[in-house]
């Protein structure tokens, strides 16, 4: 973290940026808020980068990069793909952003961690592989790796997308034994009835708070169709028991090919719905049908779903042949 603070102060001092967006301590020991720091002193005093900084800062840059001046940002590997994808979609003005790539070894699911402790928590000390938690009735210790966010437990890459202005520390590599498609494969192996029952069960908990949509870097429409009463499909809640499910399915279709699998949708869901599985199904299909594709990875490449080549397959034919192109 000290290296990041040094870098931030330097960027302020040499006039590269006039503000920096980053994380800061919140009200609770495991809360990390997002803040725009406007001076080197406040940055040095309040900036934090630790096991609880799971939030992806990229989407805030849509608005921030439209303002005057230049903003600095620290990007974890998975966040950098959202950033690169948003630049590709002309949603972020790159010339107004100075991006610093930073290392990440996985972030903690603070809610799961807090729920694993029976008593009120005073303070958490991050000792790397161990978290020491002080509570009203004494201290307890938790293994950091047991309380990773899902997106981190199934991390796909420690390598940043192109587009950052500099890197602090060593650039990582893709994760070879990434497990992110394991559950998708299990769902694919189910019968349609089992799969339908699985999703109906998961989506039945939805309270339609829209946190998944509002946090999603791929959901960057200025005015969502679901908020437009004139669209005829703007429903604030389920009019019948299938409406809610429809919202999530339509959203997954809309971000298909643009979703970088940053995992924010599942991180923020107050009802623990594994929304990332819908997106990963699309990613897995795209990989199988059109070749490996990672949204945000290549600034010049056309996205498979908005491109056509004569070699393109017919998905229904491919699956009839048992997944062989």
């Amino acid at each position, binding site marked *: 973290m000290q290296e990041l603070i040094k870098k931030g102060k330097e960027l302020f001092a040499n006039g590269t940026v006039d503000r920096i967006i980053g994380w800061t301590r919140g009200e609770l020991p495991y809360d990390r808020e997002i803040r725009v720091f406007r001076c080197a002193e406040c940055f040095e005093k309040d900036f934090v980068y630790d096991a609880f900084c799971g939030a992806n800062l990229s989407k805030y840059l849509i608005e921030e990069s439209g303002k005057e001046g230049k903003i600095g940002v620290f990007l974890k590997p998975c966040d950098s793909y959202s950033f690169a994808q948003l630049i590709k979609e002309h949603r972020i003005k790159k010339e107004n952003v100075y991006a610093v790539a930073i290392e990440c070894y996985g972030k903690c699911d603070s809610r799961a961690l807090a729920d694993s402790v029976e008593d*009120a*928590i005073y303070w958490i000390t991050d000792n790397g592989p161990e978290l020491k938690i002080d509570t009203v009735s004494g201290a307890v210790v938790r293994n950091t790796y047991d309380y990773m966010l899902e997106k981190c437990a199934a991390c796909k890459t420690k390598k940043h997308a192109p587009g950052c202005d500099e890197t602090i520390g060593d650039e990582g590599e893709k994760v070879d034994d990434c497990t992110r498609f394991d559950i998708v494969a299990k769902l694919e192996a189910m019968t349609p009835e089992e799969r339908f029952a699985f999703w109906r069960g998961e989506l039945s908990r939805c*309270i339609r708070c829209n946190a998944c949509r509002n946090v999603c870097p791929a959901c960057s429409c200025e005015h969502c169709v679901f*908020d437009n009463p004139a669209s005829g499909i703007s429903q604030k809640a389920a009019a019948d028991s299938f409406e809610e499910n429809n919202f999530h399915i339509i959203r997954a279709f809309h971000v298909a090919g643009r979703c970088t699998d940053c995992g924010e949708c599942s991180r923020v869901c107050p009802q623990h719905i594994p929304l990332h599985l819908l997106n990963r199904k699309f990613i897995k299909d795209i990989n199988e049908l059109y070749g490996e594709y990672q949204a945000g990875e290549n600034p010049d490449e056309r996205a498979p779903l908005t491109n056509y080549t004569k070699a393109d397959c017919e998905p229904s034919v491919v699956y009839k042949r048992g997944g062989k192109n």
Partner: protein
Amino acid sequence: MYSIKKEALGSLLAAIGAKRKLYVPADNAGLILFTPYADGVSVNLSRNPDVSAKDFFFPQVENICRFKVCGKTVDVIDNREKNEDFVVFGVRACDVKSFEVLDNVFLSEPVDGYYKDRRDHSLIVTLACSKPLETCFCGTFGIDCAAPGGDVEAYACGDSYAFRAITEKGEAFLAELSLENGGDEAVEACKAKINEIKAKLPLSDLTTEGFGGGKTKDLFNNPKWAELSASCLGCGTCTFVCPTCQCYDIRDFDTGNGIQRYRCWDSCMYRDFTKMSAGQPRPSQLERFRQRFMHKLVYYPENNNGLFSCVGCGRCLRKCPQSLNIVKVMKALREDD
């Protein structure tokens, strides 16, 4: 006061469930949710459920009526769900207080019949909070988590549960269950222990000083609102997990075979909230964010004899995706004094 051994809770719940619809806090995907009681439900009383008990009276969505065009007439069909008597087990003191906040809105004239009918059919068995959390601050609003109220109060004391009737309805309910007398001393010890923990909670020193009716001018134009709301996503999580948020919308849905009119939760955090022909009265997220907290801490108490419409349950602290919450707002606004 009545008492049962902890291992007898299952059979007690089964006995209640055999007579009436019963909801219990139960494990669900890492959450604790009020769940219809049935064999095999994993009851979890370790902490306050993730979703509040307001849903029993003010559900996320409910049918109001249905319209059907028949030639030149329109039939209006009342297709609301019929309510039967039900029991909610394990409601905490904060949620019980939230019913008072909701009652002030829905039971004042004109009375909301849909809401009232569900209130009339309910029986609330509360549970004292043996382990309040770092997110808890019900004490700020004068609520005692060691004396939760409701129709029947329950306490988890050592190896037993103790029950006490608070209302006549609760007295009749307990009489039906033929429980053994006892538990008075254990409850006193349990309360003493809770009070000891309460004093040590991280938010135990939070007060309502500086908030309440008449404070609009002091707080409305505070420059802090800009920074406080800057990272707000504009999602409805805080409003939907909040036990006192009571805003709703009424919408019509074309079923293809008529019109279904329904009521659903709405959120002041949404950009289309109370949108009128002249547009959105609060066009920026700053204004929407400010509205939510001003309503809880100033406008509501102003119109309801000083009663705050926050009960300190801490769900917004637990659930906000970006770690914003009412405690942070209260502390930040007070720094100016």
